[in-house]
């Protein structure tokens, strides 16, 4: 079974995000990138499926951000192959654009399952998983938190609000948008990643098409400090005293 895991780099939200002078995009000077955390779950689920059913896990990423790190880390975690799609992505890539390029690459390599993160923090024009399915002509289910394979069918658990879960059968080959792997994503020690960087290599493919119409962004801005919160200042003791007064006033402290 070949499981392909498209992964992408997203800005690390821990850093302060600044809007650039144009007012239409993020200022890249201070951006740090990391792997989309839902893609980490997709990779983990793929590795678990490989451990259960056998096969091969191929990670694929567009050459944006610091994707090499992500691809080598995936290999260190147990992926069999890592493919980097190379092209001119300076202007940014929309979800539609990324999905089209991924679809070309994935169709070429053949697949049984595509597992990708359910969403990413910069998905202005929608989630890559279902877009990929549309371009591949494959069935799909998103918001998946459990996958089991039986012959030519995958039985998945799809999450709804309030903890309700549906079991849905999907015919393979299929695309799944993963919300959570069946166990927390495994950790690859830095030493192992470094070792992999020396011994393994990333396959490169040219992007089938680089022109991305892009979303017509009119402007980007920080939400107004609609900071509704009344901020409590002071040292720990003063803060705690204030909190206790607030709770007491609301009748929330037991007698």
């Amino acid at each position, binding site marked *: 079974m070949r499981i392909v895991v498209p992964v992408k780099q997203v800005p690390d939200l821990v850093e302060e995000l600044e809007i650039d002078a144009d007012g239409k995009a993020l200022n890249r000077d201070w951006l740090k990138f990391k792997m989309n955390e839902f893609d980490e779950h997709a990779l983990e689920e793929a590795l678990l499926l490989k451990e259960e059913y056998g096969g091969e896990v191929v990670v694929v990423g567009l050459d944006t951000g610091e994707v090499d790190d992500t691809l080598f880390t995936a290999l260190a975690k147990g992926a069999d192959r890592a493919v980097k799609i190379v092209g001119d992505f300076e202007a940014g890539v929309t979800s539609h654009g990324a999905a089209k390029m991924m679809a070309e690459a994935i169709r070429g390599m053949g697949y049984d399952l595509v597992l990708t993160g359910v969403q990413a923090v*910069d998905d202005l024009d929608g989630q890559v998983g279902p877009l990929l399915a549309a371009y591949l002509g494959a069935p799909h289910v998103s918001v998946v938190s459990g996958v089991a394979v039986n012959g030519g069918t995958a039985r998945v658990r799809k999450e709804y609000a309030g903890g309700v879960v549906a079991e849905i059968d999907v015919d393979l080959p299929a695309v799944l948008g993963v919300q959570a792997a069946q166990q927390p994503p495994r950790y690859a020690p830095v030493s192992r990643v470094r070792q992999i960087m020396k011994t393994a290599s990333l396959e490169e493919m040219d992007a089938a098409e680089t022109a991305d119409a892009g979303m017509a962004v009119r402007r980007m801005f920080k939400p107004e400090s609609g900071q509704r919160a009344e901020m409590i200042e002071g040292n720990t003791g003063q803060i705690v005293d204030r909190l206790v007064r607030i709770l007491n006033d609301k009748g929330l402290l037991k007698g």
Partner: protein
Amino acid sequence: MQGKLADITFELLGKGRALAGALGSKVVGVLLGHGARDLAGQMGGADTVLYVDHPALAQFTPDAYERTLSALIKDRQPAVVLMGNTSVGMDLAPGLSAGLGLPLLAYCSDIQVSGGRLVATSKLYGGKVMVEADGGESCLATWLTGSSPADAGRSGGAAAVEDAAAPSMDGLRTRFVNLIQPEAGDVDITREDILVSVGRGIGGQENLEIAEDLAKALGGALSASRPIIDNGWLPKARQVGKSGMTVKPKLYLACGISGAPEHLEGMRDADLIIAINTDPGAPIFDVADYGVVGDIFDILPALTEKVAG
């Protein structure tokens, strides 16, 4: 879902009404299902409701629902297709966008009409950045739950329901198997008056104790945002947010939770929200009543001592 219309439906109808007004056109509600015509009648906020009945639509599956909606959209050529940014909406909108060649704007918290074009404001980057984008003259938009009042879309009157034919359901590649109700955990967080809720800021499973101690001192319970549950540090029954529970306690103490839209969805209606976070820019402070830019490892134990003492 499960025989009831969700609040998001009414939010969409309300927003649809506002857009229809701006465009000088009508609001058409759409309901797909099997034996659910009564529910269609509850969508009085729309000018018309299209109801499609088919056994394959009894429960949501991406394949059957997508092909049905695709046919309806092709037939009716709406200016805007509004869906919730929910588990269902996220499964349907992208494929419809790709298949029909219509732009899609996701995570919308507002949509306006400007010069005959649709302009949406989307909340991205964990709620830290707003993006205003042009959807053209016809687009799909997924709407963040809680962005507009559900009451705006509720109407006392019965809806004018129109039956629409289902497309062929041959060759469906996704099939519903069954629905699993949430496991009753040891604690039902939706019934607790006081929740001490932890996010990534708690750092590690071994640190949960400081929040657990405070919860006990306050006579409340521990809850958490999605990453904590995904890490396996707390059971699913403790999860607050879009893919967990929606809670409305008397007190929601958010500890080290940044406040991404998916989390806010689950707790923004709590009576009193107090947030503690080291990041002054954390979106949680936009919904909290009181905020502290501080270290939960200092504040929680001190608060526990004061409350218990």
